[in-house]
């Protein structure tokens, strides 16, 4: 070994790591700014200074500001960040374990399953778990989403089922659930139809403090579990044979990760409705910025997903002043052209 070679390698790697840490830091700063702006904007507008003041010492500002910020806007803004991070991480790991750039909670039918569960509750008052009356809609949505994820997993275990087949299967499930929802809407009252349609648009205004805490708990529990598997998950991107040759037990890793991300996605979707775009785009943006190493990609995907949804939350309030456009619509209309631009403007491949 030449010492020069070793030094060069270490320097190269140190620079790589530094650059990625800088990108992560930049994303974090942007997220904090976006979060504060999200809190500042609404029917009553506040300056960033006021917001920061109210955040640091809630006692020092007047009651109106404190109530609007902490009781009304804070759960919504936090929910945007948590759900954005959760869906993005879920999408990232679905893409990783299925080795498919199209995998996301949306394309695998998990969101559609949740929508169907919610529609059952909204239209006919069917409670799949009839004990928590206040949470019938999210619980229905959650159960259907988990059921969908389990079905996907069960089918993925069958011999000869490739990851492409699984994505096709997910898309088939999306169509089935959409058809079932249309059926529900056909038989439901006009009011119920409106409620179902609104639910499927995805909206952060359903956020409450208990929902924030539940989503945050799931997210906080998932991240370390996934991070622990960082090297293995990264190696899956080299292909199954290669990952196995490095000693990765693919079967247990896939099961473990699928359970975690199904929980992440299901909880998020059941609280805020269908937000299709984050789980697909968050991870791709992070991958373009940070590469494939999960030690950086995992936090990167969380940050980029959170940032996209937080910015979406701001946009949903300012496009038409006085009206909060459902976030699922905003993220798709604004985000997808941006995503296409990113993909098409890159010279080197990113998947």
């Amino acid at each position, binding site marked *: 070994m030449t010492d020069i070679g070793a030094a060069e390698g270490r320097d190269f790697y140190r620079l790589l790591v530094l650059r990625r840490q800088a990108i992560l830091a930049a994303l974090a700063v942007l997220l904090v700014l976006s979060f504060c702006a999200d809190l500042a904007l609404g029917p009553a507008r506040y300056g960033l200074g006021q917001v920061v003041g109210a955040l640091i010492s809630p006692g020092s500002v007047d009651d109106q500001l404190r109530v609007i910020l902490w009781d009304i806007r804070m759960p919504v803004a936090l929910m945007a960040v948590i759900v954005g991070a959760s869906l993005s991480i879920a999408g990232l790991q679905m893409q990783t374990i299925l080795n498919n750039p199209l995998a996301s909670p949306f394309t695998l039918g998990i969101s559609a399953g949740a929508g169907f569960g919610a529609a059952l509750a909204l239209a006919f008052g069917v409670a799949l778990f009839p004990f928590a009356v206040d949470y019938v809609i999210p619980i229905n949505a959650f159960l259907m989403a988990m059921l969908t994820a389990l079905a996907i997993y069960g089918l993925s275990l069958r011999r000869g089922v490739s990851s492409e087949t699984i994505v096709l299967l997910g898309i088939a499930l999306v169509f089935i659930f959409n058809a079932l929802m249309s059926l529900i809407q056909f038989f439901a009252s006009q009011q119920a139809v409106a409620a179902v349609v609104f639910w499927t648009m995805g909206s952060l205004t359903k956020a409450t403090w208990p929902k924030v805490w539940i989503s945050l708990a799931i997210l906080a529990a998932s991240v370390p579990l996934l991070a622990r598997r960082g*090297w293995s998950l990264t190696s899956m991107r*080299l292909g199954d*044979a290669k990952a196995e040759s490095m000693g990765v037990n693919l079967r247990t890793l896939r099961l473990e990760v699928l359970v975690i991300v199904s929980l992440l996605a299901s909880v998020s979707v059941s609280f805020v409705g269908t937000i299709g775009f984050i789980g697909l785009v968050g991870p791709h943006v992070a991958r373009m910025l940070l590469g494939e190493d999960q030690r950086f990609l995992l936090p990167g995907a969380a940050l980029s997903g959170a940032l996209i949804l937080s910015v979406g939350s701001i946009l949903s309030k300012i496009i038409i002043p006085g009206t909060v456009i459902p976030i699922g619509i905003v993220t798709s209309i604004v985000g997808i052209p941006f995503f296409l631009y990113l993909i098409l403007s890159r010279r080197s491949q990113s998947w």
Partner: protein
Amino acid sequence: MVTLRLEDVGASYGGREVLVGISTPVLEGGQVVALLGPNAAGKSTLFRRIFGLLRGPGSVRIEGATVPRPVAYMPQDNGARPVLTVYEAVLLARMQGRRLKVDPEDHAEVERVMDLLTIGHLRARNVGDLSGGQRQMVGAAQALVQNPQILLMDEPTSALDLSRQIGLLTLLRRLAREQGLLIVVAIHDLGHALRFADACLVIEGGRLAASGPTSEVITPAMLRRVFDVDARVEECSRGKLQLIVD
């Protein structure tokens, strides 16, 4: 010294027997063993079975190993195109099963192996942008960086130019001699096998057709029987064995 011995090893895929009753002599560290056989003879399956990715009857006996994971396996290239630099891809192979922090020793080892294989200049390139031959060299680095005592390589030279084929095989033989590695390498070029391998295993239709020192295994009779080729093995003017196809 590490040794490997197969006793009545078998393997099957979905009920179809791919390997049947393979028993080898004791293969000792310090040598290069060529695994020969026609396409679909079961060479890759045998590697997977030895490495523990497939279960089946019989036993794979590894003795004298002094590290927890003595065997490294370099599968055939599968064409995955991840957004990882060569440096990261090699480091990744070393870090499996370890904590997330990379130590200076790990960097030193990655660079040492990349230097050995003369791919240091590729370190910042994306694996997905490399040529097939370059990817194969990265694959070899990923196996070597795990510091194995037994190295299983599935056609490591299939995409390399002649100079790199000879370079890699020469390096493998040197590593075997100097560090006592046992290197089992599946290879289609019997001329290379004659030149670089100390011993050969020949597999045909999932069974062991021949095994032993290279010069005793690669014979016109075996070539005729297993590969259906008429060929001679003759000494060249420098006394090296050469394969001549008629």
